[in-house]
């Protein structure tokens, strides 16, 4: 059963994958900005109060950086295609063997626009990932993993949650170092803070490992070497098939019929591998994640957006890929806009029926009388 009417953790990932698929099917900056706006709105409305949810801003900044890098690279190395020259940078003459590479020179509006579109698309994909990470608790996603992958998944999740702890201990050590009169800047500060932080991280990792061991983590039935090899082989084959298939379906659909069959083979091999591997696992689950109508609706709304953009990219190329040569003003069309607006639905659909607004219930603890609640100390 899901806790307090929370969504199935996969729902948000499917929704975000839908949005990412939509973004990968267009270079229209208006549509891309609309996707980012939808992601931002839903995250702002449905973000859980826990610590890991504060990272969305970082993904937005990362997106901006991507756009900036893509544009700067275009200006320095880009082709001078296009008539509308905006500025003419000093051009560096390269020796003959480097013909074809250009440094500096004219910067045209057409080229710049195409670079911007491209960068924006990449940034949107990144922000999609960011939204999924923000909205779905990573540890709950872990529970939906098949048994054979559980232990690997746990290691990954524990490693992920070490990062904020590292930041926290770095801050602590820096604060402590100021007590010894250090300014906390410069190369020496890096060494004097880095050393204890690393030592602390190591100590923590060791004591966590010891605690997990003492709590029975990694108990498993005996398994023959043959089974282990079979599992590994099947999984490797499955992953190969999946990557090949995903590439075929998403990136190069015009390449013909490689995509779908290899995707299918990949899925089958993965399922078989996980089934064989899960047989040796003793673990049970305290909570099963169930699919409820709201989760399905969230996932479906993302899929609708993806389908709308897929259709647009096939039948309305001018909207999906606005021409940059000659430079056209990007247009909007009804279908993709409608599709993306449907993907906004989780902002309302995902609201839990038991706790009307998850953040409203968090508030009392944030305004309590003490910074650290000390209920345990309130005895007589």
């Amino acid at each position, binding site marked *: 059963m899901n806790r307090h009417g929370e969504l199935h953790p996969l729902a948000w990932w499917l929704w975000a994958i839908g949005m990412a698929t939509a973004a990968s099917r267009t270079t229209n900056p208006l549509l891309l900005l609309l996707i980012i706006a939808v992601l931002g709105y839903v995250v702002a409305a449905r973000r859980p109060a826990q610590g890991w949810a504060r990272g969305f801003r970082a993904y937005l900044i990362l997106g901006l950086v991507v756009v900036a890098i893509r544009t700067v690279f275009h200006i320095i190395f880009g082709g001078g295609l296009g008539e509308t020259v905006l500025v003419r940078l000093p051009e560096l003459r390269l020796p003959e063997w480097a013909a074809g590479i250009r440094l500096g020179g004219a910067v045209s509006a057409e080229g710049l626009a195409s670079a911007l579109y491209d960068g924006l698309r990449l940034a949107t994909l990144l922000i999609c990932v960011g939204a999924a990470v923000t909205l779905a608790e990573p*540890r709950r996603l872990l529970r939906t993993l098949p048994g054979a992958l559980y232990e690997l998944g*746990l290691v990954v999740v524990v490693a992920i949650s070490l990062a904020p702890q590292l930041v926290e201990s770095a801050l602590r050590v820096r*604060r402590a170092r100021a007590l010894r*009169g250090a300014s906390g800047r410069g190369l020496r500060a890096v060494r004097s803070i880095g050393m204890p932080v690393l030592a602390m991280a190591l100590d923590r990792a060791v004591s966590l490992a010891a605690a997990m061991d003492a709590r029975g983590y990694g*108990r498993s039935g005996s398994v023959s070497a043959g089974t282990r090899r079979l599992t590994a082989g099947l999984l490797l084959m499955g992953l190969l098939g999946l990557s090949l298939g995903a590439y075929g379906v998403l990136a190069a659909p015009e390449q013909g019929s490689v995509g779908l069959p290899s995707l299918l083979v990949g899925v089958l091999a993965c399922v078989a591998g996980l089934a064989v591997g899960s047989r040796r696992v003793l673990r049970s689950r305290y909570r099963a994640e169930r699919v409820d109508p709201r989760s399905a609706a969230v996932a479906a709304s993302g899929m609708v957006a993806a389908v709308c953009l897929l259709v647009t990219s096939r039948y309305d190329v001018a909207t999906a890929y606005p021409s940059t040569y000659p430079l056209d003003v990007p247009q909007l069309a009804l279908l993709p806009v409608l599709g993306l607006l449907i993907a906004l639905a989780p902002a309302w659909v995902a609201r839990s029926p038991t706790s009307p607004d998850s953040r409203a219930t968090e508030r009392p603890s944030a305004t309590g009388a003490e*910074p*650290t609640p*000390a209920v*345990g100390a309130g*005895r007589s």
Partner: protein
Amino acid sequence: MIRFDHVSVRYADAAADALSGVDLTVPDGELCLVVGRTGSGKSTLLGAASGHVPHFTGGRLSGRVLVDGRDTREFRPRELADVVGVVGQSPVDGFVTDSVEDELAFTMESLGMQRPVMRRRVEETLDLLGLAELRDRPLAQLSAGQQQRVAIGSALTAHPRVLVLDEPTSALDPGAAEDVLAALHRLVHDLGITVLLSEHRLERVVQYADSVISLAGPGQPPRYGVPGDVLGASEVAPPVVHLGRLAGWSPLPVSVRDARRQAVDLRSRLSTLAAPATSRAGGSVVLRTSGLTVRYRGGPPVLHDLDLTLAAGQVSALMGRNGAGKSTLLWTLQGALKPLRGTVHVGTEEPSALDPADRRTRVALVPQDPTDLLYLDTVGTECRQSDTESQRPARETRALLDRFTPGVDDDTDPRDLSEGQRLSLVLAIQLAARPRVLLLDEPTRGLDYLAKDRLAAALTQLSRDGTAVLLATHDVEFVATVADRVLVLAGGEMITDGATRDVVLSSPTYAPQVAKVLAPDAWLTVAEVARALPVPA
């Protein structure tokens, strides 16, 4: 239940055995307390019972350890998880999940239990440890006492026969510590669990113990028996036992209740004597705050409108439950935190306006984890670095260190020092700057009685030399020994400020054992009583 069969442990590269000649059996359903000085092998003994030693730590274990009939030689810790539950010193380091309920279920999931069984046991454990209202809370938002109870709960859900706890109350305020120990006491009585527990502050736990294992140190076999017998012969003992020895009681009492019944004579003898000297009044005011209000970004005020003075030559103790704002106050007084409103003045200067190097010559702070201040690889280089930092002649820091704890080798890695030695090193480094005010955050955590006595002597000497000392602590016995004045902080406000004797005698939570035994007379420590009594005939 736990059988140690001629067990010795030697770690790799160690010159001597960490544990030797342990040959004893802890019977089923007993709460057994492990005592000993720092480095006497308490953690090693506990680790051996859970299989942690040597499977995880390395080293060589000779002899056999049998837990519920299973030899730890053949069973790794994870295969003992259904028999032994382990709770460490720092519960946060052992948490695998985010929320209380999931953490409680983790061990059972590893053991592959049925879901209905798991759900039932989680509910039972939530009730048993009083965690029911916290079930959905993220672990990071709990107080230290609550976290420790979750850690105990998560070890309990698998219904182990043995529970091994390594200093479970070291980070807790007296109230929270009592909660945790009361929960343990109930487990022993209701469920018949065998508990193996180590603790430095014996006064907290010894009345709950059925038996005691006293570790004498490297190369000597431990003593095992009923608490009164074993502690009577041990250098590590709570104040009531020392008082009992002084008064010549037999059998030696281990609890305040026993001692009070035997103390009728002593009380009447003492009541004819002059009352112990009152606390020293402070000299001139060194540090003064007015209207101090501190708040973390976005949160409510942690400290509210605080007026406080610290006087030269006085040791003040700052008490209050976990999360009351003690650490925040210390960091604000040091100047590292800027108050929202109000001021801190040392003389005429505000520490927060100075740069870090000047600040520490006015107010020095030894933080809760002194290791944070150390980053070089030997004690010698740390001392030399400190001399340069504080612009002192060579070896001044080293001389200070020798004054607090003589005999620390220059080539030792600071991380290999005992808690007491490490604290002395950090204290020496901070005092090399010759501050007028010294602040210490929980200095007695992890210290054994001998190290505490040394620290008390050092702090008393410092205050005699004119330094104003303020220490935040939960340790009521230490406060009774060292402090002239006690401040109690609750909900961000100073609710009490008075002479130690008046404050600790007025509330049972803060009263030391000797005061409880000898009430209504105002004696606080064994040393006071010893000084007052005429030499016995």
